[in-house]
């Protein structure tokens, strides 16, 4: 989506317990991105391209470990991923909604 008004290379961490952040603009592999928490900022180097609105891991996440966004489980990992990896339905699953 063409949706970038002077946006910094940043991703938003919605809840303090989340292990993913959401890209606030299109982010590229190898770039350093600002992780914006409600009260502080961190930096992460991206291992893959992350499109606007999509998720990046902000910590290493094991296979079958919960993916947390909004402070809630939105699914589990099919494979382990490292901090900076792209998370979407190619590497996470959600039991709710499979049937």
């Amino acid at each position: 989506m063409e949706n970038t008004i002077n946006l910094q290379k940043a991703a938003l961490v919605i809840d303090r317990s989340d292990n993913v952040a959401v890209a606030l603009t299109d982010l590229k592999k190898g770039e350093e991105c600002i992780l914006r928490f409600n009260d502080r900022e961190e930096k992460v180097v991206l291992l893959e391209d992350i499109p606007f609105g999509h998720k990046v891991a902000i910590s290493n996440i094991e296979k079958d470990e919960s993916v947390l966004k909004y402070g809630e489980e939105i699914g589990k990992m099919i494979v382990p991923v490292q901090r900076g990896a792209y998370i979407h339905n190619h590497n996470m699953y959600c039991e709710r909604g499979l049937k």
Partner: protein
Amino acid sequence: MADTFMGFRRKNGSVGIRNQIAIIPSVFCSAKVAERIANQVPGSVYFRHPVGCSQVGEDLEVTAKTLISIGKNPNFAGVVVVGLGCERFSPYELADGIAPANKMLETVVIQTEGDSLAAIQKGSKIAREMQQIASRQVREEVPVSELMIGLNCGGSDMTSGLIANPALGIASDKLVSQGGSSILSEITELIGTEEILARRAVNKEVANEIRETIFRTEEKLRRQTQNSSNKERTHLISTGNYAGGLSSVVEKSLGSMKKSGNAPFSGVIQYGHQPDKKGLFLLDSPGHDGEVSTGEVAAGAQIILFPTGRGTPTGFPGIPVIKITGNPKTYSKMRENIDINAGQVLTGEKTFEQMGNEIYQEILEVASGKYVKSEVLGHDEQFCVTRLP
């Protein structure tokens, strides 16, 4: 000390934030007469709908309850019911239903008056007189616990669940913590979060009602997607949702649910009904923009809060609809339609907390009389009674 706003205290104790006359047809056949009456008397609003006859059973009951409840909404100082005379949902039944609200109320029936012109003339005189009486009432200071807001959204994009809804949730929590009321709905957009919502219920009964309401909606959608011709249209999550970055139905629905903040759920409201206490409620309605707003106004909501990522101009007759976008680009394009730019959270200019407070302050200002953009521009598309199959 609790926050306050300036509202119109009604005889039955409820508080309106607008002071208009509602012209309500009991059946679609009298819609034009109702519209013409409203046109004759600026300051009154009319409710065009396609129902009121050739309906049976629960479908007719929901229509009846909804139209009655719209008439009872405290934003309306008076109501003129406009009937044809032979419809299944009688105009007298509609007026009798509104009567307990103890407000100015008259009924005009086209077949009794003789013709549509005679009915327009009679209705206009009544509305003119009601308007003059209403104009003498002045606003008084009342606690925010008298406010009920309806949460809704439409024309969503990825910023809605990410930015605008969580910011709105902070405002909703603030109102509920001060004894006010808030309504979450759009059950079709909550599938997958039933356990998360049920955890927030005040007791086991409410938790079960929340689960059942969501499962019932999911089952209805599942049945409607069984036909081989529409099998690709899954009821849970769309290809557009995936493309926007949503990986599961739970993730999608959490974004919708966030409008309701973290407050406990006091109960589930059936369509057309009002809750008998204050707090946060879940309204059983599918996620159609208009059906949701109509159900919330029928429940007693005086204001609708409406996040919109892509931007929509719609409004509701006699009820302010506050538009919030999480997308800064949409705000710059649709300034004439959108009231609050929550995109400032996305650009890093404001925190969620600051934006939530800003939305809350806007709610108080609008409740005290400030017009929202959809009101000034006369948008009224969102009145739309839900139908049952």
